[in-house]
């Protein structure tokens, strides 16, 4: 049995390596033709068969950054409220509701984004852009329906439960002695959170936010529906754009008969894969460091997304 299970584990590693090599093989054509300008050049033109994908990478980074800016503070607030302040009886139901955000499939968020969020938010975006027209990049310009902001907002909603659940997990490991010591010294509830809870939980929360980032970078269907799919670098927050994942999903069908086009899409997939891999490795490092610093709480504590730590605690999601 030991031999069999070891072979199984090895087989999975080998399979992943095989997939990775095949993906590199398929992207080779695009990389050999466009070289580094596939990543840094800004000219994605299907009609002329030129694939310089800077606009895609920029779109991926902008939307993910918006998602972090909106999602992480709310996720941390939720985690702090649920672990430190919330009445005990409301704790479990509220936690379940936040976790359920992760159970909604991305295509449903896309549907909701297209037919509810985009039309309802457009007036507010127009007001915002004209009122704050003096702020570069945010103001000016005329907002269009699908844009970076909408995509970032939906991504924020999608990463919120992950970041919140990991933060909750980490905050729960703060030793009560630390908190009691702060309170005994006369700290208010808030000062106790700031002085005892947050410093202790910071590496874990950082890791959680980075896992959320990894999720946002790779999200496809919700983004392709609301980002506008224009292969240009948008000049402000409310302009249309494109993302690495979106371009693959959107142009996949038409690319099937043009080898260089499909190779460019595989290359976009490779860039995306490597990007998320790096973000995830850094995130794991942060979470693991947070754990080790505090003497380690075993595999069950915070080395992994909460669904793994407490299958019952997190719904439909394992980051």
């Amino acid at each position: 049995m030991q031999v069999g299970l070891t072979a199984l584990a090895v087989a999975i590693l080998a399979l992943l390596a095989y997939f990775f090599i095949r993906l590199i093989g398929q992207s080779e054509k695009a990389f050999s033709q466009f070289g580094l300008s596939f990543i840094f050049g800004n000219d994605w033109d299907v009609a002329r068969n030129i694939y310089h994908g800077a606009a895609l990478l920029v779109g991926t980074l902008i939307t993910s950054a918006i998602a972090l800016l909106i999602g992480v503070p709310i996720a941390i607030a939720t985690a702090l409220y649920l672990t430190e302040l919330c009445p005990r009886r409301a704790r479990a139901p509220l936690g379940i509701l936040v976790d359920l955000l992760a159970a909604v499939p991305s295509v449903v968020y896309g549907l909701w984004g297209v037919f509810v969020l985009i039309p309802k938010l457009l007036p507010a975006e127009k007001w915002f852009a004209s009122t704050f027209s003096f702020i570069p990049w945010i103001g000016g310009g005329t907002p269009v329906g699908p844009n970076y902001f909408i995509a970032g907002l939906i991504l924020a909603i999608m990463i919120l439960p992950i970041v919140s659940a990991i933060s909750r997990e980490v905050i729960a490991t703060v030793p009560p002695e630390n908190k009691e010591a702060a309170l005994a010294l006369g700290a208010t509830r808030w000062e106790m959170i700031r002085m005892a809870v947050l410093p202790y939980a910071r590496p874990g929360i950082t890791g959680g936010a980075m896992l959320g980032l990894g999720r946002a970078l790779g999200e496809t269907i919700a983004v392709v529906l609301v980002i506008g799919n224009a292969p240009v670098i948008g000049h402000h927050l409310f302009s249309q754009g494109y993302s690495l994942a979106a371009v693959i999903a959107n142009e996949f069908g038409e690319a099937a008969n043009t080898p260089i086009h499909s190779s460019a899409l595989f290359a976009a997939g490779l860039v995306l894969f490597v990007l998320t891999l790096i973000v995830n490795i850094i995130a794991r490092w942060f979470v693991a460091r947070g754990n080790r610093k505090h003497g380690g709480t075993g595999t069950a504590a915070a080395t992994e997304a909460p669904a793994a730590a407490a299958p019952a605690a997190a719904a439909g999601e394992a980051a």
Partner: protein
Amino acid sequence: MRGLLLVGTLIALIPLLLVIYYLLHKGLGALSGSFFSSDPNGNFFGDPGGTRSAIFGTLEIVGLATLISVPIGIGVALYLTEYGRDSRFGNAIRYFVDVMTGVPSIVFGLFIYISLVLGHVGGSGFAGWKGSIALALLMLPIVTRSAEVVLLLVPDSLREAALALGAPRWRVVMRVVLPTATPGLVTGSLLAVARGMGETAPLLFTTAGAFALTGSLNAQMNALPLQIYNDILSPRSVVIQRAWGAALTLVALVLILNLIARLVSRRSRMA
């Protein structure tokens, strides 16, 4: 400050309430007898048809994905807890499984497209079973990570007692460890199934979608997320209404799975 944190929590819940409200508001009207009993037909005029093939397609594809990912996922978890708990190789496997959870689902779709669809493996290009494998890759790390945690909760004293009675290792696993951990394993697997059920991107490149109902996993297949995605892009309001109905159906399925998972885990004493 307390107020601020409360406001943050309430803001976090707004999207969930809004999504559920709109799903019920726009989706309930689409549900009718023919919604569940007829297939989408792709006609540009008249009745667009229902979602029967999508619902059955989702059940078939996810069913096969579950059959693949759950045994393998639990097998890897067993290796990690029973044999490789502190070994260097075990830690490496654990690390790669962690990394797998962060791979975007669309990349799994590309993997399968390149290695199975392009080469027409099995005689056809796009096929339901290829979608199942893509979903299985996505579900595998979820199953493994949750199973590992549950298996670690099985007290070592139970293992030692069985070993002391002279049971071989494999028998300890089959007769003591697995039965003790069953409720937790079921919970983790159900959550993985719920996750796989809602994925669109991996299916886009592997099963590709279809209109008609098919029982053959070696043919192109429809699935709920695929149909929702395609319907959103349609200019017809009837079709968009069908998308809301299908979305309501999909969310209901996912939430029911979540609910069952919770009930199972509540019944277990251990977790």
